[in-house]
C-alpha cells in the first residue's frame, strides 16, 4: 500500500465502495491511489432486513456513502471526484453538488477555497422509477443533540402521544443523559471515522466545518429503513436558513444543512428514491429561536440539570452548571438571552449557575449576537433581530433592567435602533412552511402554543 501524502496535493477524490453486514456499514474513500479511508457506522442490535426493504436500504446506504464522504473530501478539496462503484444519476449528483458547495462554504471561506468551482460530481442520465411505499411502522426517530431544540421536539411528540425513539450518533455522556431523561426508547448509533483522517491532518490536510447534520440525516435514513420507522423529525428552526455572511458574492451559511433548502431536497429525495412513506422533516421549522425558547421554558422543566446547548462543554457531562455551560461562547450567550424573557429569573440562573447578562466582560459576545458593531458569529445561533428583541424586552423588566449588559443596551444601543420593531410578538408567530407529515402536525401546535 502506498504511504499517506498531503491530501492537498491530490488530484482525485474517490468514493471507493460501501457495504453493510451484521449491523455495520463500511464506507470507503481514497485520494488518488492512496490508502483506503474506511469509516464504520454501527447500528446496535440491528434486525434482519426484510426482503421488501432491500432496495430502499441499498438506496439509503448509497446516499450515506456519498454524503458522509464530505468529511474526507474536504481534507484535499480536490477538483476531481470519482465514484468508483457507479456514477450517480443527475438528481443525486445535483443534491451532492449542492451539499458539498453550500455545506462547505464556510470551510471554503476559512481556507480561501472556491468550493463552487471545485465541486462537481460525475453523473449520468438515467430514469429511475419512484420508490414505492414500504408500509413502514408509524413511529418516529427523533434525534437528540443535548440542547433545547431537540428536547422541545421530543416533548411535543410525547404530548400528542406519538410513538418515538430518541436517537443519537456517537459517544456523548451529555446526550445520553438527556436521552435517558426523555423517558423514550433509545437508539445510540456508533460512528467511527477513519483513523487515517487524523494522519492526513498531520500531513497538512485542509480542515474546517462540515455539514454534519446532513451526515447524521443520511445515517438516520438508513436506520429508519433498517429498524422500521416512517419518520425522522429533526429540530431545525427557521433561522437556520439565514446566511451568516457573504463571501465573494455568495451567501455563506454556517448551518446550511440545517436549513430549509437542504431539508426540502432531502425530503423529496427520500420520498422518490428510498421509500414513498419515509418522511424527513423538522418539527421546529416554522418557528423562530424565540418561539422555541418560549416552548422550552414551558415544556422543558425536566431538563434543567441535564441539557446544554454550549459548544465548548458540549459533550462532557458534569453535575454543576459550569460543567455544561462554559458561559463564554455564542451559544451560551444566545440561549441565556433567548430564555430570559420566558423563564423566572432565579430558575434561568440556576440552570446556568451564573448571570451572563450581569457580567461586563461578556459585552462583546452579546454585541455579536445583536449584530452590533460586529458581524454574526460562526455558530448556530438565532438572528440578530431576535437577540435585539429579547434584549429590548429585558430592558423593560424591572428584575433584569439593572443588570450590567441590559442597562448598557438601554443606554448605548437601543437609542441607535429607533424605528426598528423590537417587539417579541412577531417572533412568536409560526410561519406556514414545513414538511411535517399529517400524522405529526399536531406536535407543531404544541411547540407554538402559549
Amino acid at each position: 500500500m502506498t504511504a499517506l501524502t498531503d491530501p492537498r496535493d491530490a488530484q482525485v477524490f474517490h468514493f471507493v465502495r460501501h457495504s453493510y453486514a451484521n449491523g455495520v456499514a463500511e464506507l470507503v474513500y481514497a485520494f488518488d491511489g492512496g490508502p483506503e479511508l474506511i469509516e464504520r457506522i454501527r447500528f446496535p442490535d440491528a434486525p434482519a432486513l426484510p426482503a421488501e426493504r432491500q432496495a430502499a436500504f441499498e438506496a439509503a446506504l448509497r446516499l450515506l456513502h456519498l454524503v458522509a464522504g464530505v468529511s474526507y473530501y474536504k481534507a484535499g478539496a480536490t477538483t476531481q471526484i470519482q465514484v468508483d462503484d457507479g456514477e450517480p444519476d443527475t438528481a443525486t449528483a445535483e443534491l451532492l453538488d449542492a451539499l458539498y458547495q453550500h455545506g462547505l462554504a464556510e470551510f471554503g471561506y476559512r481556507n480561501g477555497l472556491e468550493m463552487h468551482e471545485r465541486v462537481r460530481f460525475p453523473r449520468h442520465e438515467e430514469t429511475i422509477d419512484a420508490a414505492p411505499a414500504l408500509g413502514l411502522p408509524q413511529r418516529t426517530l427523533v434525534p437528540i443533540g443535548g440542547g433545547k431544540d431537540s428536547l422541545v421536539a421530543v416533548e411535543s411528540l410525547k404530548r400528542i402521544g406519538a410513538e418515538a425513539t430518541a436517537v443519537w450518533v456517537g459517544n456523548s455522556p451529555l446526550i445520553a443523559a438527556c436521552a435517558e431523561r426523555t423517558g423514550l426508547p433509545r437508539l445510540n448509533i456508533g460512528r467511527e471515522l477513519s483513523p487515517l483522517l487524523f494522519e492526513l491532518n498531520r500531513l497538512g490536510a485542509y480542515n474546517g466545518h462540515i455539514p454534519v447534520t446532513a451526515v447524521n440525516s443520511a445515517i438516520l435514513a438508513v436506520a429508519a429503513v433498517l429498524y422500521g420507522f416512517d419518520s425522522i423529525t429533526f429540530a431545525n428552526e427557521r433561522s437556520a436558513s439565514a446566511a451568516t455572511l457573504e463571501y465573494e458574492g455568495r451567501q455563506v451559511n454556517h448551518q446550511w444543512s440545517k436549513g430549509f433548502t437542504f431539508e426540502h431536497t432531502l425530503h423529496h429525495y427520500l420520498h422518490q428514491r428510498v421509500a414513498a412513506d419515509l418522511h424527513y422533516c423538522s418539527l421546529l421549522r416554522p418557528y423562530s429561536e424565540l418561539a422555541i425558547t418560549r416552548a422550552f421554558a414551558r415544556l422543558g422543566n425536566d431538563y434543567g440539570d441535564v441539557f446544554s446547548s454550549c459548544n465548548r462543554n458540549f459533550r462532557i457531562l458534569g453535575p454543576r452548571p459550569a460543567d455544561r455551560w462554559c458561559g463564554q461562547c455564542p451559544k451560551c450567550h444566545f440561549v441565556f438571552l433567548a430564555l430570559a424573557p420566558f423563564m423566572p429569573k432565579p430558575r434561568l440562573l440556576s440552570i446556568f449557575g451564573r448571570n451572563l447578562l450581569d457580567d461586563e466582560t461578556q459585552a462583546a459576545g452579546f454585541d455579536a449576537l445583536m449584530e452590533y458593531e460586529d458581524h454574526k458569529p460562526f455558530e448556530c445561533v438565532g438572528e440578530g433581530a431576535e437577540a435585539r428583541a429579547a434584549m429590548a424586552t429585558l430592558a423593560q423588566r424591572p428584575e433584569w433592567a439593572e443588570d450590567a449588559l441590559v442597562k448598557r443596551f438601554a443606554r448605548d444601543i437601543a437609542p441607535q435602533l429607533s424605528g426598528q420593531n423590537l417587539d417579541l410578538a412577531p417572533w412568536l408567530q409560526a410561519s406556514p412552511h414545513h414538511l411535517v407529515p399529517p400524522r405529526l402536525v399536531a406536535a407543531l401546535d404544541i411547540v407554538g402554543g402559549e
Partner: protein
Amino acid sequence: MKFGGTSVATAERWQTIGKLAASRRAEGVRVLVVVSALAGVTDALKALSAEMDGGKRKHAAAAIAERHHALAIDMGIELPARVAERLESLAHLAADGPAAGQELAWQAQVQAHGELLSSAMGAAFLSAQHLPTTWVDSRDCLKAVALPNQNERTRLLSAMVEATPDAALQARLAGQGEVFIAQGFIARDDAERTVLLGRGGSDTSAAYFGALLKAARVEIWTDVAGMFSANPRQVPGARLLKRLDYLEAQEIASTGAKVLHPRCLSPLREPRVPLLIKDTNRPELDGTEIGPHLREAVTSVKAISTRKGITLVSMESVGMWQQVGFLSDVFNQFTKHGLSVDLIGSAETNVTVSLDPTENLLDSDAVAALAADLAKVCRVKVIAPCAAVTLVGRGMRSMLHELSSVLAEFGQLRVHLISQSSNNLNLTFVVDEDVVDELLPRLHELLLRSGSLRSDDDVQFGPTWQALYGRGEAQMVPGWWRGERQRLMNLAAERSPRYVYHLPTILERARSLKTLDAVDQCYYAVKANTHPQILKALAAEGLGLESVSPGELQAIDQAVPADTPRLFTPNFARREDYVTALATSASVTLDALHPIEQWGEVFAGHAIMLRVDLGRGLGHHEKVRTGGSSSKFGLPIEHLGRFIECAERHNVRIKGLHAHLGSGILDAAHWGEVYGQLAALADRIGSVEILNIGGGLGVPSHPGEQPLDMIELNRVLSEVKATYPQYKLWMEPGRYLVAESGVLLSRVTQLKAKGEVRYLGTDAGMHNLIRPALYDAWHEIVNLSRLDDAGTTLYQVVGPICESGDVLGNDRRLPETHEGDVMLIAQAGAYGAVMASHYNLRDAADEIVIE
C-alpha cells in the same frame, strides 16, 4: 440521652441503647432516655392523618401495629400491655377520623402515637434486660405555651415549651426510679390537648427535659460523632469540633450543619446544661460538647459553611431610607409576594437583602412581580445565583487580621454582601454561586494555614472526618527521612545547609503516574529540579522532559539520551529562544499571538503546540495560579481565531493544545474539566492530535490535607478519553514527582526570645529555600537531633538573611532546641535548589542524591 428513629427500630439497636444507658447509670447518675418513633412510623402516621378514606386509614394503622408486633418478636418479649392499649387507641382514631373542626387536634393525637409506642416497647425491653426502666409520659412533663404569633396549626403541630428548671418534677421523678424512658416530639397544652413540637422535635424534647431537670448533661446519640469545621462531603479534611459554646453551635447549626436542629440549644443556655453529640455506632469517639465554655476559649474560627441558591435584591434610592415608614413599606412588598428575607446589608443609599431558595422563588414569577412593585419606589437589581459563605467563631472581629489570606481569596471574587452580626459570632460573604464548590475546600485550607482555625488546639478540634469515616488518614505516611535519620545526621555533620534527594521516592512517584493509563505521555517539568541524576532516572522511567528555557534544554541534552521526548514551553521568551528550540527534537509551545504574528516565518513548516488560557486559575497561592486574565500565561480564547489565521498563513500546523491552570491542585475533577474544554476546542481547529492538560498535581503538605486520588483522577480522565479517543493525552507534572523526595538539612545558629516570641535561627534561609517567603508555602520542620522529643515550645524558624521575610516556619511546636541541632525542612525537593540565590553573598546549599 436521646435516640432517633433508626436507633430504636431493631432489638439489636435497643441493646446498644441499654448498654449505653447502663454505662451512664454506672456513673451514679439517673438516666432519662428520650426516643423517636420507629424509623418510618412518623411518616406513616403523617400519611394516615392526611388520608380521607377511613378504610385506607384502618389499613395503615394495622400496618403500624404489625411493625410493633414484629419488633416485640425480635426483642423476644410479649407485646407490652401499654403498647397493645396504644395500638387499640390508634385503631380507633384511624377508624373514626377527625371530628368536625378538630382536624388538627386529631392529627396531633394520631402522630403522637409513634413515640408513645416506641417508648413503651423500649421500657419493656430494657426492664427485661435487667435495667428497670420507668415509662414516663412526656406530656405530663412538657407544657406547651401559647405564643402571640402562633395560629391554631402552629400551636398544635409546631408547639413551644417554656422549660425552666422544675424542682417539683425533679423530686417526683427521683421518687420513681433510676432509669426513665420518655417520648420525643410531644407535649400537652393548657387545654390538656396533645401537641407536637415540629421539626427537630425529639432533639428539642431532650433539651427541654435537660432544662427542666437541670441535668448534668444532654446527650444526642446519632450516626456521626458531632459537628465538623465544614461539610465533610465537600471537605473531607474537616475537623471534628470537640467544644463549642451554645451560640457558636447554634450559628453553625443554622448556617449549614444538619446534625442538630438549631432550635434545641436555646432551652439549655439559661440553666447552663451542656449538650453532647455522640456516634451511636462508635461511642468510643469523642463527640461535640456544647456548653458555656466561655472563659477557657482560645479565639479561633470554628467552622465554615455555605448555603447555595440565594437571590439578592439590591434596592437603591437617594435619601429615602431615612423617611419614616419607607423601609417598612419596602419590606411589606416581600411579605406580599411570599418571599422571606434573611441577610440584610445597608448603606446610606442602598439596602440589599438576601432571599433563601424556595419553590415559590424558582417556579413562579414572584421575583418579577416583586421587582415590578419595588421599581415604583426605588431602583432595584436582582442578583443571583449567589451563595453565602459563613465563618463562625466567637470573637470574629478580633480575628480579622489573621484572616488576611482568606480575605485575599474573596478579593478575587465578586462579593455582593458582607454581614457581620452584632453578637460577633459570624462573618458572612455573599458571592457568586459558581465559585463556591471550589472555594469552600480552599478557604478551609487557608483557615488552617493561616492559623485562624486553630486545628493544632486539640481541646477544641478533633480528628478529620476523613480519619474517622473516610478511607483513613492516608496523608500520615511518614516521610522517607524518618527511616534515614542517622545517615542524614552524618550528612549534616559534613556540611550544612545541604539538600538531600531520595531517589526511591522519586521513582515511586513516577510509577504512580504510570497508573494513569489514560495518559499517553508524561513530561517531567524540569524547572522543579534539574539535578542531572534525577533527569536521568525519570527519563529511564519513560518520562519525557519539559523545559522552559534554552538553559534547561541544554541541561536535558547533557543528562539524558537523545531519544527522550522533549517539550519546550517558554513564556515571553526571546525570538532566538524559539529558533534554538526548533532546531532540537523538542515540541515547541507558543502561548501568545506575538510570536506567530510578528515572527511567523520562524515557525513556518513546523508543527507547534498552543497553550491557551481557559479563563480560570486554580492553585494553592495566587502566584502559582496560571490561568485567568490576571495571569501572564496562555493565549486568551478570543485570540484563537487570529492565531489560526496567522498559523495558516505561515503554514504552521497546530498539532496540540495545552492548558495549565495552576499548581498544588488536589481535586481530580479539575483535570477532567480542562481536558474536556481543550477537546471541545480541538474539535473546532481540526489539526490537533494532542491535548496537554498540564501538571499541578498537588502534594499534600499540611496535616489534614488529602493526597490526590490517582484512581479517581484516572477514572475522570478515562471518561473524557472515551468521548474524545482521537486525541493523545499528555501531562506535565513537576513538583508531584520530586517535592517529597527532597529535604533541606541545616544547623541551628542562634536562639532568641523577644517578648513572648521565640526565634530559632538556622544556617539555611530564604536564599536556599524561598517558597515560604514567596508563596507562603508550608514545609514541615523537625529537629532531627531531637526527633523523638515532644514539641514543647512555639518557635519562629528563621534564616540568616537580612530580610524580615526570611522566615521558614511560623509558630512551630518543637522540642527545646539548642545551637548546633540539625533541623530538617521537608518536601524541599521541588523549587528549592533551583530557586536559590546568592543574596547577601551567602553560599548555595549543595545537593546530594541518595539511593
